[in-house]
C-alpha cells in the first residue's frame, strides 16, 4: 500500500461533562486511508463519526493519540491541511444571503485563489452539480437536494486531494441520492480520496472500497463491504413476519434453522446460506408467515451482529 494520506493512531476526543467523567466521543480509533481510496465510517447516530470527521478535517482538536493528514499534524498545520481538503458537513452551512454562484466564488477566495479562477471554477462546478439555471438563485430558494449538491460543489472548489463527506445523502429523496452518488463516482475515478460517514448501509456498500464499523467511539470491525459481510454474516437472510405479538414466540421454534436467528420488533431474521430452503422448511412445519423475503446479507446485518442494534433506530 502506498503511504497513507490519513493516518490515525489511538485517536481520542473527550468532552467535559459537568459533574461526570469526561464523555469519550471517540475512544481510541486507529485507521489509515490510502490515496485514491474511498473510505467509510459506518455507524449509528452518536457513534463518533462526525467528531472523527471534524478531527480529520483539522477543525476539532484531538484530546489524545496521533493524527497525520497528508503527512502533516493538524494541530500545527491546520490551514495547510485544510487548503487541500474538501469538506461536505452534515448540516449545510452555505451563506443564505448570497446566491448559489456567489457561495462558490467566495469560498474559492478563502483558498487564496485569484478572482478570475474562482469565477471559472464556480461555473464549472455549477455545471457539475447540475445547478447552472440556479446560479443566481438565493440559497434559501433551493431544495434540500440542490443545497446538498451545491455544498458538495463548494467542497471541490480547490480541487481537493481528500474529500470529506459527513452523511452526504441524509434527508435526500432516492433520486437525489443517486445523482449525488454518480457525482461521487466521477470524483473517485479522477483519483480523489473520499472519506465518508453514513448510517445507510446501501450507501456504504455503493461508495466505499473499505470501511470501519464504529459504535460508541470504537471500531467494531473493518474491511471491504464484501469481506465484512462474509466474516460477520451468512450469504443470505430470510425475513419472515408473523405479526408483532407472535414473532417472539415463533422465533423460539425457528432456532437451529439457519446459522442464527435474530428477532426484531416487526420481523424475524434467519441467517442462512440458503434462504429459499429455510423458507420451505418453515412452511413444511406448518407455519405460515404473513410475509417473507429472501435477500442477500448487507452491512445492516453485520452491524446488527456486531452490536445487537440496528443502524437506524
Amino acid at each position, binding site marked *: 500500500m502506498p503511504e497513507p494520506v490519513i493516518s490515525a493512531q489511538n485517536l481520542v476526543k473527550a468532552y467535559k461533562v459537568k459533574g461526570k467523567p469526561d464523555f469519550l466521543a471517540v475512544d481510541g480509533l486507529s485507521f489509515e486511508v490510502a490515496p485514491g481510496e474511498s473510505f467509510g465510517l459506518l455507524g449509528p447516530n452518536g457513534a463518533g463519526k462526525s467528531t472523527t470527521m471534524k478531527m480529520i*478535517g483539522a477543525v476539532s482538536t484531538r484530546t489524545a493519540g496521533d493524527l497525520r493528514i497528508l503527512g502533516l499534524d493538524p494541530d500545527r498545520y491546520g490551514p495547510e491541511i485544510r487548503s487541500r481538503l474538501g469538506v461536505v458537513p452534515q448540516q449545510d452551512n452555505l451563506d443564505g444571503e448570497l446566491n448559489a454562484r456567489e457561495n462558490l466564488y467566495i469560498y474559492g477566495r478563502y483558498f487564496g485563489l485569484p478572482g478570475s479562477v474562482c469565477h471559472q471554477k464556480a461555473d464549472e462546478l455549477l455545471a457539475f452539480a447540475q445547478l447552472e439555471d440556479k446560479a443566481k438563485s438565493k440559497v434559501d430558494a433551493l431544495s434540500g437536494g440542490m443545497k446538498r449538491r451545491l455544498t458538495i460543489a463548494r467542497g471541490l472548489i480547490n480541487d481537493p486531494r481528500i474529500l470529506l463527506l459527513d452523511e452526504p445523502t441524509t434527508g435526500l429523496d432516492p433520486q437525489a441520492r443517486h445523482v449525488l452518488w454518480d457525482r461521487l463516482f466521477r470524483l473517485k475515478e479522477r483519483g480523489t480520496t473520499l472519506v465518508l460517514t453514513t448510517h445507510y448501509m446501501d450507501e456504504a456498500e455503493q461508495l466505499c472500497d473499505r470501511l470501519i464499523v464504529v459504535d460508541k467511539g470504537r471500531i467494531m470491525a473493518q474491511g471491504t463491504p464484501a469481506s465484512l459481510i462474509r466474516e460477520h454474516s451468512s450469504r443470505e437472510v430470510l425475513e419472515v413476519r408473523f405479526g408483532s405479538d407472535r414473532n417472539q414466540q415463533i422465533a423460539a421454534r425457528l432456532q437451529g434453522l439457519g446459522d442464527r436467528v435474530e428477532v426484531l420488533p416487526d420481523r424475524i431474521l434467519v441467517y442462512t446460506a440458503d434462504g429459499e430452503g429455510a423458507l420451505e422448511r418453515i412452511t413444511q412445519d406448518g407455519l405460515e408467515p404473513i410475509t417473507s423475503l429472501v435477500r442477500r446479507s448487507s452491512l445492516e446485518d453485520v452491524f446488527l451482529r456486531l452490536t445487537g442494534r440496528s443502524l437506524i433506530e
Partner: protein
Amino acid sequence: MTDRTPLGEPVEPPGATSVHPTLDDLRAEALEWGGKPRRLGTWYVTEHIVRAMRAYGWTIVVGALGQPILYLLGLAVGLAALISAPIDDGGQQVPYLVFVAPALLATAAISVASEEFTYPVMQGFKWRRYFYGFNASPLSSGQIANGVIIGAAARMLLAVAAYFLFITLFFLWLYPGVTDQATAWLSVPIGLVGGLAFGVPLAAYAGSLEDDTGQFALVQRFIFMPMFLFSGTFYPLAVLPGWLQWIGWVSPLWHASELGRIVTYGKPVEPWLLGTHIAYLLVLTVGGWILARRIFTRRLAR
C-alpha cells in the same frame, strides 16, 4: 467501478490518472497552498462579510445617509431653536447643535455596532452556521473573528464618514468658523474606535451565547438606550447628579463623544483626561478583540 485485487485494494481503471503523488509531494503542496490564506485570511473573511451586507445594502446606505440628515435637521430647526442659549461645555460656550453633533456621530457608530455584532454573530455560529463553513477552509478561527470585526468596522466607517460630511455641511450653513477644520476630521477615526470599543466586547459576548433567549433585546434596551441617554450625549455629563455620572464614565459613548468635541470645536481638556478617554476606548477594543478571538477559537474547535 474499479476492479479490486484479492486484498481489496483498488486498481486504477485504464486511462485514469493512475499515478498518485507521493506523500512528500502532497505535503509540499499543502504547505504551499496554506501560505496565502495564513497571511491574508482575515481579508478573505472581510470580503465575504462585506459582500453579504449587500443583501441589506439599501438599509445600510439609507441609514448612513438618512440618519444624520434627519437628526441634524431635527435638532437644528427644532431643539436647537428652542435652546437658544449657548451650552457651557467645560468653560467654553458653544451652540447646542455644535455641542450635540459629535456625540451623534459617535452614537451612529455604536448603533451600527449593536446591529452587526449581535445577530450576525449568532447567525454565523448557530442559525446558518457559516462560520463553520469558513473554518473548514484554510481560514483560522482568529481570522474569522478578525474578518467579522473588520467587516462591521467598514460599515461603521461609512456611517461615521457620512455623519461627518453632513455635520461639516450643517456647520458651514449655520455656524461657519465654529469648528477647527484641522482636527475635526479626527472625529471619524474616533467614532470608529468608539463603535469598536462598544461592539467588539459585544461580539465576544454574542459568540459565547448558545441560544438567543432575548439577550440582544436586553442589550438594546438596558445597555444601549441608557448609555445613549446618560452619556452626556444631549447635555454635559456634569449636569447629571453624581450618582448617575458613573454611567458616563463606563460608557464608550461618553469617552468617544468627549474626544469628538475636543477635535471638533477644541473643547478644553486636561491632559490626563484626554489620555483616559483614549486609553479606555483602546483597552475595550483590544481587550474585546483578544477575548472574541479566544471565544471564536474555542467554539469552532469543539
